[in-house]
């Protein structure tokens, strides 16, 4: 990569790092894993920078790399690199319905990775089905089915549990 493009890459990543980390956090629900995932993704972004910078949306390209690294990583690589003594301190989000947000987070974290990624892209980032399909590298039909399955799983997880008879 020539010096000019190296500089472009550095500037892009510097500028968009907070945004990429946020996406990674929403996918992993864990800041340590989010940083590992982001590190992995920006390394891949470097290797693809010539294409990324020329893409119609560099942001979409970068996000796609991140999401796919997440899906791939659930099977290997960074997902196994559990950091045992992180300095991270989780802070609760400011929310009007704290319990509901905690519940939906927990339910989201319990979904299979592809369903989770689909819901995050569609509803946390407002992507339409076709764009979600592009970023996940799958068909629109798969996005629709993963969305339906994910929402069903969330709905069940969040539904009030019937009291058990003693």
């Amino acid at each position, binding site marked *: 990569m020539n010096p000019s493009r190296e500089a472009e890459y550095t500037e892009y990543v510097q500028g968009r790092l907070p945004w990429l980390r946020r996406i990674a956090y929403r996918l992993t629900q864990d800041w340590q894993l989010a940083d590992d995932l982001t590190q992995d993704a920006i390394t891949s972004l470097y290797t693809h920078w010539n294409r990324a910078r020329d893409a119609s949306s560099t942001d979409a390209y970068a996000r796609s790399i991140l999401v796919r690294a997440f899906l*791939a990583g659930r099977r290997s*690589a960074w997902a196994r690199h559990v950091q045992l003594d992180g300095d991270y301190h989780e802070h609760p989000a400011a929310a009007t319905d704290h319990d509901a947000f905690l519940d*939906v987070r927990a339910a989201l974290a319990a979904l299979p990775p592809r369903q989770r990624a689909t819901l995050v892209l569609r509803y946390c980032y407002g992507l339409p089905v076709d764009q979600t399909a592009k970023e996940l590298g799958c068909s629109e039909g798969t996005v629709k089915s993963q969305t339906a399955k994910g929402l069903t799983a969330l709905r069940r997880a969040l539904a009030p549990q019937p009291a058990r008879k003693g």
Partner: protein
Amino acid sequence: MDDNPVIALLESITDPPEPASRVDIAAARRRGRRRQRLWRAGAPALAVVAVVAAVTVPRLVLSGDTERTAAAGIPTASAPPPVRHPAMPAAAPATFNVLVPYAAFGWLPSGYSEAPNRSNEAGELTSAPTELDLFAGSADGGMIDLAVNAKGACLPPATDSSGKPVSAPADGSAQDCFAGATGVAPDVNGRPALWIEDGRAIAWEYAPDAWASVGAVAVRNAPATDKTRLRGDVAGKRTLPPVTAAQRNLVRRVAVAVKYEQKTPLLFSFKLTGPLPVGWQLQSVTFEDIGGRLLADGLNAGPAVDTSALGLSANTQFYACNYVDGQSSYVTQDGVNWEYRVLDDHIAKNVEMLCSTTKVDGLQVNVYLDMAPEEAGAAPLAGSTALGGAFGVYQKLRLLGPDPANWTTNPLP
């Protein structure tokens, strides 16, 4: 409960305050560069590595080590010098002298060289305060990668009772130094060692708390569309053949011969005539090994908050400047024709870039200067202002021409 309340919750999720980032952009660049080279090694490299591993190594093992001298290039197996393992250092520095690369290959398989070539782009070796990255390639695209880390910069994972690594470094300081550690390897000159990815690479403790690694990985790189290539990369679908015993022997042979505490300085085609701003330091140098001479082709300097705030290069090679509508303009200043580019948008703030559109004193000059630190919202970099912007940097630059005989070992005043 229908889907709408669930969707409403998803849409309005807010994240907790984010902790300080551990993400290392410079490391991503280094590792990305390394990965690119390995990709470029391509399918022929598999054959090269396999042949080297299957034929060359056993032959060399039988006939003794071959020792490479800096100026002599790659030895032939027909005249191997006597066995001489390099001395292992008693201690490693916590910070390397960026201007004098700390280590060097001591042995490479026949046909491999650190000199750049069109097949594998083996050039662009990197010297940084805590890491030295060296590459060697063959004309057919094979690649061997040596990374030497300063003391404490890259520590091994914990091991279980059988010696098998069980986790990444606990301090989080060296995230993927040993990401693929898979087991204990035979010692390297009496020092503990680990196999990486079943033997595609080896890592060893060359001095107390100081580790290095050698890999000879070539990835099958069949022609692919952008889409399939991207998908293959991020989905981990690139397939690697099983590691052979001969491959393990090869990386270990390279590791055993690595030379430490080297004294050969880098040579620079330019010199800054004014000081770096207070608090700034030299952060990394990329260089090439041409016939045993270590020729720097660029440096990065900056303060701790932005270690690549200043980028400088003056190369005998010429690259087309990267004109971007809305950011670039052509200007003539100080008698030089420049593409002058300013980045100032939602992604990058206050960055100036200069690229000479013709050679100046036989060199193409690039200057990159960041006026804002990496941390969003922080104050502008005072040092950048003190340098007088990108043109101010150029005015403090003394070019030494295209002949390395006239170059300097210290680019700083």
